[in-house]
C-alpha cells in the first residue's frame, strides 16, 4: 500500500465522517486548487490575490481556472509589490474578508516581513483580542537546477519564530487540502508553505470539504526503534528510508509534522519516549532551524530526556546558501540514503 494512503487512512482527526480515502485520488496541486475553489464557493469572503494568480498557467496549476469561475474581483493579479500586497491583504482581512495571498516563491516573502511579522502577527495581541487577521499566505519552496540562492530557500523557521503566526507544511495531497481549508477558516494569520516537488504527487483526495487540524502531526508509520520526524518533502524520503531500514530489521516510527507552529509537542514526546531515538529531517537549514526546536522539546522534558538512549541526529541543510550548480546541488540536498545513515548512526550510538 502506498504510504500516502496509509497516511490518510490513519487520519483519525478528520472532522467529517463521510471521508473515504479509498475512493478518490488526486494530486497535491489539485488538492490546493480544490480547497481554494470550495472555500470560495462556500464563503464569499474568501478571495485570492497575488502575482500571476490569474495567469493561464495558474501558479503551477494551483489557481488554474479560478479567474473564469470567480472573475477578476475575487481572483486579483497584482502589481509587483510584495510588501504592499501583504498590507493590502491584511487590510482586507481586517475588514472582514478571508484573503488567500499567493506567493510564487517563498524567497520573496521576506519582502513582506514587516507586514507579516510586525502587523499581521501582532494585531490580535495589540488590540486586546478584538482584532484578528484571518489571512492565509501560500508560498512555494523550489529546488532544482539553477534555482539557486534566491529561488529555492526553505524559510519556515523565520516565520515560526514570531508569536502570533501559524505555519503549516503539508506533505500529501490529503493534508494539502485539509490544511488549506483549516487555514482559510482560521482567524489568525497562517503561513501555508508548499514544496514544488510535491505538486505531481498523487494520493487519496476526498471530494468533500474536510479539515485537517492545524497543530496536529501525523504518525504515519509505527515502529519501536527510532522516531523520524519529517517535514514537507522529507516525509516521502523518510518513508522510503523506513521501508529500507525495515528490511534490515530497524523499525522506524515516522511522523509527518504537517504543522510547524504550533508544534504537536505531545506526539513528538510520546514517540521519542517509546523509541528512545530521534532523527529529524527538515527541508531547511540546520542552524537555528525547526529541527533544533524539536530536539529542544525532547531535551526539556524529564520523561523524554530519560528515555533518550543516545544523541539525536538532524538531517538538514548545511550553513550555506542554496547552490545553482548541478554538482553542488547533488552534495547539498539530502535524500533517503542520508536519513538511512542517520538512523543507523542513531542506533549504533545508543
Amino acid at each position: 500500500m502506498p504510504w500516502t494512503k496509509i497516511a490518510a487512512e490513519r487520519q483519525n482527526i478528520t472532522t467529517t465522517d463521510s471521508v473515504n480515502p479509498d475512493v478518490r485520488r488526486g494530486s497535491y496541486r489539485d488538492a490546493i486548487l480544490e480547497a481554494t475553489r470550495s472555500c470560495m464557493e462556500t464563503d464569499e469572503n474568501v478571495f485570492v490575490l497575488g502575482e500571476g494568480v490569474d495567469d493561464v498557467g495558474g501558479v503551477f496549476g494551483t489557481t488554474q481556472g479560478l479567474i473564469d469561475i470567480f472573475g477578476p474581483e475575487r481572483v486579483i493579479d497584482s502589481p509587483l509589490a510584495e510588501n504592499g500586497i501583504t498590507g493590502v491583504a491584511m487590510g482586507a482581512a481586517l475588514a472582514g474578508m478571508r484573503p488567500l495571498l499567493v506567493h510564487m516563491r517563498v524567497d520573496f516573502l521576506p519582502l513582506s516581513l514587516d507586514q507579516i511579522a510586525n502587523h499581521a502577527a501582532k494585531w490580535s495581541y495589540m488590540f486586546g483580542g478584538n482584532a484578528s487577521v484571518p489571512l492565509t499566505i501560500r508560498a512555494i519552496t523550489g529546488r532544482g537546477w539553477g534555482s539557486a540562492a534566491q529561488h529555492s530557500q526553505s524559510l519556515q523557521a523565520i516565520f515560526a519564530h514570531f508569536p502570533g503566526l501559524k505555519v503549516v507544511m503539508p506533505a500529501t495531497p490529503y493534508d494539502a487540502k485539509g490544511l488549506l481549508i483549516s487555514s482559510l477558516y482560521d482567524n489568525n494569520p497562517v503561513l501555508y508553505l508548499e514544496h514544488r516537488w510535491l505538486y505531481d504527487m498523487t494520493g487519496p483526495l476526498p471530494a468533500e470539504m474536510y479539515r485537517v487540524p492545524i497543530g496536529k502531526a501525523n504518525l504515519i508509520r509505527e515502529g519501536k526503534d527510532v522516531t523520524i520526524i519529517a517535514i514537507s518533502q522529507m516525509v516521502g524520503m523518510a518513508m522510503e528510508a523506513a521501508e529500507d531500514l525495515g528490511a534490515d530489521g530497524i523499525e522506524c516510527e515516522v511522523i509527518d509534522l504537517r504543522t510547524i507552529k504550533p508544534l504537536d509537542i505531545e506526539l513528538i514526546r510520546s514517540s521519542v519516549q517509546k523509541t528512545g531515538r530521534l532523527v529529524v529531517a527538515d527541508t531547511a537549514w540546520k542552524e537555528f532551524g525547526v529541527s533544533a526546536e524539536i530536539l529542544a522539546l525532547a531535551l526539556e522534558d524529564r520523561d523524554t530526556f530519560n528515555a533518550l538512549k543516545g544523541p539525536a541526529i538532524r538531517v538538514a541543510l548545511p550553513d550555506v546558501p542554496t547552490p545553482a550548480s548541478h554538482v553542488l546541488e547533488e552534495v547539498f540536498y539530502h535524500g533517503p540514503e542520508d536519513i538511512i545513515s542517520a538512523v543507523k548512526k542513531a542506533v549504533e550510538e545508543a
Partner: protein
Amino acid sequence: MPLKIIKTFDVKFLQIIDESGRADAGLLPDLTTEELLKIYRAMILSRTFNRMALALQREGRIGTYASILGQEGAETGSALALEKGDWIFPSFRETGVFISRGYPLWRMLRYWRGDERGMEAPADMNIFPMSVPVGSQITHAVGAAMAMNIKKDKNIAVTYFGDGGSSRGDFHEGLNFAGVFKAPVIFICQNNQWAISLPRNRQSAAETIAQRAAGYGVPGIQVDGNDVVAVYAATARAAERARAGEGPTLIECFTYRLDDHTTADDSSRYRTDEDVAKWQKKEPLIRYKIFLENKGILNKELDKEITDEAEGLVKAAVTEAEAVAPPAPADIIKYTSATLSVRQKKDIKALKWEK
C-alpha cells in the same frame, strides 16, 4: 481664494531614428562611424548570443533563460553611453548590457548553465550580479552613487529594471533617496510592456513610468527603447548631468519583450500573435540597419563580416563554457562568507566535500 496651479509637469518622449530608419538630423548625437558601428556590433553580438542561448536551453545545455529579443537597442544603447568605470546594477534581462560592457561571453553562459562562478565579474569591470529578486538592485545603485559623492569619484551608478520592478517600493524609495542626495545615478526602466503575464496597464494607472520621477523631484524622460541612438543620447545626457553634480535621471525605455518571459513561460497563453507582430516591425535592429545603410556605413559585405564574427565569438564561448570543470563541492562553503566559521570548516570535512 481660487485654486492656483503651483506646479505643472510634462513628460517628454525622445525618438531620433523612426521605424523606417529616418533620422532627425537635429537630434542625432555626434557619433563617429566607428562608434556607430560599435553599437551595431554590440547589438548583433547580443542578438546572436541570445539566439544561441535559446537553442542551448532547448537542448538542455543551459537552464532557464530570459530572452532579450527586441530589447537589444535599449540595452546596448545605454550601456555604450557610459564610461568604463561606471557601476552597473542589472536585473536578469540585461544580457545585452553585459555584452556591451565586454563581459566575457563564456562567463555569461556559465551563469545560465547554473554555475555561480558565471557572475564573477572581471576585476576591471564594475558590473554587479544580476538581481533575481525583481527591483532590489535599484537602491543598491543609489547607495553606490552616494558613495561616489562621498569619495569624490567621477564615476556614476546605473541601474536597470523592468516595468514590473517600477511597482516595488524600492523603486520609489530609491528615486526619493537619489533626489534628496543628488546621487549620480541613472534609473533605466526597460518598459517591455509585460511582467510575465501582467500587462503594463495593470502594473500602474500612471500613463508613463517616466512621469513618476516628478514626484521625487527627479527628471524623467520616455525614450523610444527600440531606437538605439535615442537611448544612447538620453543616457549620455543623464550621465553628463550626474557627473556634473546635477543628480539622478529616470529614463523609461519604451520597448517590447518579443519572446516569452523566460524559457519556462509560454506567452501565447496571454497575448496574441498580432500584438507581437506589430512590435516585430518596430524591433531595434531593422531601423538601425537601414539608418547605417543609408548613411553608407554598412553594406552587405560588412554586415556579413560582423554577423560571422559574432557567430564565431559565441560558438567559441559555448565551447569554452562547456569545457570548464564544474565547481568543487567544497567551494560552496568556501564562498559563503569572507571567513569561515568553525562549524562551516567542520562541515566541509564531515560532508566529505573535500578530500
